[in-house]
Every structure is written in structure tokens, then in C-alpha cells.
């Protein structure tokens, strides 16, 4: 394989597509576990190949400036994509004990996180910092969705409206999805580092926007009132609308 920025970029994109596929298979009841394991295998081999490629690229080409930033970011993105694969496997295992239809938040989380992964990869391909920034903003949405799943579990658990085992697995899935959201956020931060050279990690200010605040307000309403019927459809519509802008 040619030792170049181009092959590195191509490999990361291919690996990213596999990670997306892994998430999709994790939620696809008709897909066999073995299919997912196969994808996971391919992701793992990209993991090794890409690190090796980065090492050789840096050792042989002595990249400077943006090329150096790109290579360093690729090492990190490579690790993040590999862990997305791991999380997909965890989700698949947990889902065997859960009736997904009973937990609309999981569905919303899956949609949100799936889109974050897709968009962080698109932002990587197109060096699109605006898109990367919108992924980073969405991290809080996913965090709040996870919290709402836990609250719901506690409430339903107290009222014995839910099997302990099933509830536990649902929170686990939410945790995995939240982790994937984090990883997509990390990748987006790396994209911004590649393009602009600025390190925006651990900066809470960056994550604040009014649009997201409105989204969060809606999500916070989800579990707060047991009697209030959750209008998921409405929220999903809203989420769609805000992301289209």
C-alpha cells in the first residue's frame, strides 16, 4: 500500500463505513451475530493496518504542519472507530434481552447517534468544520437522552412495571450509545484540529448553542412526569428539523 495521506484517508473512511454498518447490524434483529462479528473483524484489521500506516507515514515522510496534524488525528480517529465497533457488539448482546419497541428513547438515541457517526465521517471526508461542530453540539442531546433512560428505568423499576434484567440491559444499551456519541464527538474534534489546528476539547463553551438548549428542554420533559404521555413523534420531528438547518 502506498504510504500517503490519501491511502490513510481512504482507509479511515472505509473503516468508518464499517463502523456505521456495525451499528446498523447491532439493531437489526434479522441480522445474525456472526454477521456483526465479521464486520468487527474487518474493523480490527483496519485498526492495526491504519496505526502501522500512520507510523510509517510519520517515520518516512516527516510530515509537517497540516499533514502532521492529519496523521496524528488519524491515529486517534482510528482508535475511536475501533471502539465504536466494540460498542456495537455490546449493544447486540444486550438487545437480545430487550423488547426495543417498549423503549422509544432507545430508538431516538439510535437515530441521533447514528447520524452523529455519519456526520463526523462526512465532516472528515469534506473537511467540514461546520458539520463537525454540529456533531459536537449534539453530544449533550445524547447525554441527556441517556439520563432520561436511566430515570425511566428507576421510575418503572420502583413501580415494578419493568423486569429488572430488561431494564438493566436497556440502560446498558443507552450507555453504549452514549459512548458512541462521545466517540463521534472526539472524531469531530479531531476534524476541527486537522482543518484549523485548534484544540477545542474540554471546552464547555463550544458545546453551547441556543438550538441545542431548546432540544434539551424537550428531552428533559421526557421522563419527568409519569402521567404525561411522551410525544416522541413530535420530538423526533423537532430533532429532524433542527438538524436539517
Amino acid at each position, binding site marked *: 500500500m502506498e504510504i500517503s495521506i490519501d491511502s490513510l484517508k481512504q482507509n479511515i473512511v472505509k473503516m468508518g463505513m464499517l463502523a456505521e454498518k456495525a451499528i446498523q447490524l447491532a439493531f437489526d434483529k434479522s441480522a445474525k451475530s456472526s454477521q456483526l462479528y465479521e464486520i468487527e473483524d474487518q474493523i480490527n484489521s483496519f485498526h492495526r493496518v491504519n496505526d502501522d500506516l500512520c507510523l510509517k507515514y510519520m517515520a518516512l515522510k*516527516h*510530515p*509537517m*504542519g*497540516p*499533514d*502532521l*496534524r492529519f496523521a496524528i488525528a488519524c491515529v486517534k480517529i482510528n482508535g475511536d472507530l475501533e471502539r465504536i465497533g466494540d460498542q456495537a457488539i455490546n449493544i447486540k448482546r444486550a438487545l437480545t434481552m430487550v423488547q426495543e419497541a417498549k423503549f422509544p428513547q432507545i430508538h431516538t438515541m439510535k437515530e441521533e447517534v447514528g447520524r452523529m457517526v455519519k456526520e463526523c465521517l462526512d465532516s472528515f471526508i469534506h473537511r467540514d468544520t461546520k458539520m463537525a461542530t454540529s456533531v459536537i453540539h449534539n453530544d449533550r442531546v445524547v447525554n441527556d437522552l441517556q439520563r432520561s433512560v436511566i430515570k425511566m428505568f428507576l421510575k418503572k423499576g420502583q413501580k415494578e412495571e419493568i423486569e429488572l434484567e430488561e431494564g438493566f440491559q436497556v440502560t446498558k444499551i443507552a450507555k453504549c450509545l452514549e459512548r458512541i456519541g462521545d466517540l463521534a464527538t472526539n472524531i469531530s474534534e479531531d476534524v476541527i484540529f486537522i482543518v484549523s*489546528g485548534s484544540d477545542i476539547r474540554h471546552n464547555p463553551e463550544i458545546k453551547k448553542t441556543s438550538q441545542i438548549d431548546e432540544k434539551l428542554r424537550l428531552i428533559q420533559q421526557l421522563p419527568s412526569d409519569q402521567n404525561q404521555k411522551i410525544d416522541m413523534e413530535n420530538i423526533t420531528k423537532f430533532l429532524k428539523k433542527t438538524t436539517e438547518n
Partner: protein
Amino acid sequence: MEEAKTILSTKNLECFFGDFQAVKGISIDYKEKSINAIIGPSGCGKSTYLRSLNRIHEEIPGAYNKGEVNLLGKNIYEKDVDPVLIRRNIGMVFQKPNPFPSLSIFDNVVIGLKLQGVKNKSLLQEKAEHSLRKAALWDEVKDKLNKPGTSLSGGQQQRLCIARTIAVDPPVILMDEPTSALDPIATASIEELMMELKKEFCVIIVTHNMQQAARVADNTAFFVLGELIEQGASEQIFTNPKQKKTEDYITGRFG
């Protein structure tokens, strides 16, 4: 931390070869105890600029300068300044080692002091040893100080030239591609030496080796066609240059 003192600065320095202007209005401050790299494509005026910092550019027939070079606050291009004194005090190391072929290793080192009128034998001895030790050459030559300077290897000759340069305690040392003719080991030892020299002197080095600039220089300036495109901490220039031209150059996409 104490703010480092500016020891040398150029202000709108221009360099001409007759009608041709090779360097166009360059202003840079150089701090004491620092290494400063100048990089840029071939023919962009690096050597010409460097040679104007100790007034050897004007030695070429038809060549002259405009603007200021301030050494410790004094413009060396003022009428009352003797260029010979400047050349003697701002040492220069060239791409090709150039020891005086007729002189011994010892005399090569102390020639500057002798020209300054120093006659005291033991002082010359002391200075020679001190400079050769500083240039990391003492152990290799201490038993053959009377041999000709040209009997040494290329890397040793280059260190001899550095010893010659530092013997007069110059405030500033200029180096024009000092390692381009050396193998990686000799290069590494010269770079180590630069780090050592930086503890006392201000070093200004022209280099085509970007890794070298990144390794040793605190600051880097990038020239194109006689103009200063960008200057700053090497850390910044090599990781996050502000100018597109700099970015293209350091990533090898220039042209």
C-alpha cells in the same frame, strides 16, 4: 520569567545586487540566547540577508544595502561604523568548511584574536582550548594542534570553523547551511553544539533541512522571493502555520 533581550534586529533591511533587489524590507528581532532559522526556496535571498547582518554582502562589487541592522541598539550601517570590526565580531560559518589552508589547527582558532592584537601566548592557548572544547573538537585535535586545519575531516573542519567563530566571543553567530555537506552523525554533533552555543550566543542559521530548523530553532522565518512571508515560534510554524504559502512549503507542496 524575564523577557529575553533583543540583541540584533533588522528594520526594513533591503539588499541589492546593482539594480536587482534580492531582499525586500525585512524586519525581524533576534533575542539573546536563541537559535533562529531562516528557511525558504533556493534563491529567495536567505544567504544575501544573512551576509548583510555582518556587512559582507557589500563586499561584492555593486552590492549594497538599505535599512537598518541594529546590534545592541546600534545601527551597524551608520557611517562611523568600521565594517571590518563588524565582520570580525559577528562570526559566520559557511556551508563548506573553510579553514585557512596555510594555518595550523591552533592558528585557525585564534586568528581572529591575533588580528585583534592579542599577543599573550598563554591567553591564546587558553582561548584556543576553550573554543575547541565548546566546539566539541578538543579531544579529537588536542594532540595535533600544529597540523594544518585542512587535515581534518569535513565535520571536524566545520567544528573548527565554529571554534574560530566563537573564539572572539561574538554576540551573534551566523551559519549558512552549516551541515548540508555533513553526514547525519556530524550533523547531529553540530546541532548539539548549536544548542550548547545558544546558552551564550544568539545563533542565526539558514537551512534547507526543515527537520533541522524544527529540531534546533526557537524561531523560524520563512522567505519567498526576498520577502518575509511568516515568522514565529518554530513550534507554531511547523505545526500550524498561518500563511498558506508557509503551509505549502513545509508540506512540500510549494510551486
